[in-house]
């Protein structure tokens, strides 16, 4: 308790704190201000990545783990993913944490999937298909409130291992905030999918990513918001492959000569 003031008044007598020993270059400053993360887990400096007390779930991608606070998908909060349309590799990206929840024997709930799910494809990603719960809320006549009600109930109950939800477009900020509060009771990952235009508006969730296709079996991932400094360059992730090696080479060569295809397209549009 009195270690820091004592160290300031009589520096030579006490051995320096282990955390401070590394920063010999600025000894005076470092001694006056100990590293904030040693004081409280909720504190961090602007250039560091934040850490939360709940341990994170590994993403299965080393490059992404390195950029996320705590090295993985956070628990007990919403992780917001913005994507232009379904089918750019989002399920392959999110499969590892969801499968991990199923391996622990906890259920995974999917809310309002944008299209029909294929059981064979999910099984090949490692899912236990029988234990997947699919909740369809938008088929009701009254839109809006019901889908969020169901999601909020699932988050609040604390009995669901992981949640993957497609939110209705143009969602108001306070509704998302309500969901974020409900997620505090949810011991697991919670992903919400939203349209790309939502990036212009602020969000209550502490993690916001935008996804885009980055070539065949590749995903371009930009971190728009995280507890920590902004990430300048988007990440390129290699997804679990759908294509064979030869087909991927073919795709790469086709994408590397995009100019011709682009000019063609422009020409066609003008005609």
């Amino acid at each position, binding site marked *: 308790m009195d270690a820091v003031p004592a160290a300031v008044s009589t520096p030579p007598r006490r051995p320096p704190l282990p955390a401070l020993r590394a920063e010999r270059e600025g000894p005076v400053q470092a001694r006056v201000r100990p590293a904030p993360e040693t004081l409280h887990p909720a504190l961090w400096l602007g250039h560091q990545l934040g850490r939360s007390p709940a341990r994170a779930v590994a993403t299965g991608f080393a490059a992404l783990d390195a950029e996320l606070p705590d090295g993985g998908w956070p628990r007990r909060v919403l992780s917001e993913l913005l994507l232009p349309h379904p*089918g750019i590799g989002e399920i392959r990206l999110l499969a590892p944490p969801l499968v991990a929840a199923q391996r622990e024997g906890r259920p995974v709930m999917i809310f309002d999937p944008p299209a*029909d799910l294929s059981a064979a494809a999910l099984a090949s990603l490692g899912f236990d298909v029988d234990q997947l*719960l*699919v909740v369809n809320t938008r088929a009701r006549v009254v839109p809006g409130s019901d889908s969020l009600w169901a999601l909020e109930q699932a988050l609040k109950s604390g*009995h669901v291992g992981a949640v993957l939800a497609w939110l209705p477009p143009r969602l108001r900020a306070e509704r998302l905030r309500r969901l974020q509060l409900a997620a505090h009771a949810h011991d697991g990952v919670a992903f919400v999918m939203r349209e790309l235009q939502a990036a212009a508006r602020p969000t209550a969730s502490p993690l916001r990513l935008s996804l885009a296709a980055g070539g*065949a079996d*590749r995903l371009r991932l930009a971190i728009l918001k995280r507890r920590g400094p902004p990430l300048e360059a988007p990440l390129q992730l290699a997804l679990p492959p*759908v294509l*064979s090696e030869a087909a991927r080479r073919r795709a790469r060569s086709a994408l590397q000569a995009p100019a011709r295809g682009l000019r063609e397209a422009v020409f066609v549009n003008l005609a």
Partner: protein
Amino acid sequence: MLWIAVHLPLLSLESFAATLAASGSDEAEAERPIALLEAHRIVSANAAAQALGVKAGLKRATALALAPQIVLGQADAERDAQALLPVAHAALAFTPAVSLQPPLQPGAATDTVLLEVQASLRYFGGLERLLAAIHGALRPLGHLVHVACATTAEGAAILARVEPPPCCTDLAATRAALAAAPVWLLGPGREHWEALQGMGLQRLDDLLGLPRAGLARRFGEGLLVELDRAFGRRPDPREPIAVPPSFESRLELFARADTTDQVLHGAAVLLERLIAWLAAQHAFVRRFRLLMHHEARWQSERTPQATALEIALAEPSRDSAHLLLLLREQLARARLPAPTLELRLQAEDITRRAPPNAELFTTTQSEHEGLTRLIERLQARLGPGRVQRLVALEDHRPERASALCDARAAGAGPESRAGKKRRRNGATGVAANPSPPAGAAMPARPVWLQAAEPLPERAARPLLDGRPLQLLSGPERIEAGWWDSGLAGRDYFIAATPEGALVWIYRERLPLSRDANEEEAGASGWFLHGRFG
């Protein structure tokens, strides 16, 4: 023998108050003056009414002049009996020997329940704890309860009416307490109250001192019989009540209920009775029915409409909060054709089993139960069939290879089959997932399947959103369904959009067999069928 008498001094007022609409908060509830009439005279009034000067014996008009906002109801012995029954059922959780004390006046409703608890004392950890447990079990029913103990049944019933009710565990104490009790607490004593008072006989020990032959001649044999039973000088056999095999309770609402909230207030009272009945036989309910009898809309309508709400549970339950929540969601969805006059709750389908263990930390069992409840809640609000499970089917056509089925149907057999399957699937998933052996593994399938969308074609390349697709892999031929109506002969390709997103497209093998009008629409035989998510 040790008897506990549970006396409900305000039973008829409380059973009447239960039929009134909820008036918001508890304070408003307590401040609302209520009184009961019988033959145009007030027979009982609650505290709020008494504060305004309304007391038993007043005429109806006098009471209305004193308190214009008073709610006046008719005393109804049948309604009181309906309200007392759950108290007896709740008492059955503590001892099988529960009996009803006959009423003081013939025609009135009984308001005392007797429990013989000598054999239960050890199990419940002594009289103090047993009394606390009885109070706790009766609290949800919302009655004012007076509890007295005595060594005789009649004595306990008499002492429960004394203020404050004493607790006597041996015969000497029982006799001493009874000796000080007023004479009119004896059934026949009330009949002869005037004469007894005129003779200066106020307490029971005044009677004890008199010659028995004279007492019998003046006041009848009944007075002596009851006196002897109370003091333990004459055997007093009691007939224990039996639990009916099916539950049915009704509540006639005082004012017609227009909103579901008002219906729910009455239904909550009935649910508490249901739970007392379940607790009496250590059972859990699997399905129950709420019947709402509506007001006749026309004079000519002979049999007014009734709405029935059937509530089935995946997991049998006895939790009033959970049942009420399900009822609330169902009521919010139901359309009521007319205001409701009477509610009826019925239940037959129950299951008997040991109560679940209370756990400090969450376990698999409690997790499973919590999930079942969550699914029930979602289905109650969203409608059945909105919470589903994915099932893989054996079919080569991708649109028929998966299906959604009701989550509850699959959840019925909780762990046995599903658990086995999960382990097997998990094993194959591990083998197939990280590095699918080239060529040997099953060909890739997209996560998202959509209805086949025809794609235009330009320069022998299919176009998606006006931009050409790059074919990367294929063809994979799927030819199946000649045995049913869905014949499919397709060559599937994996293609990439210019950004690199992968889609699953197919070319119809038999374009000539398709309709001419689809041909007109520019169908080139290419269809978009899925996207690789």
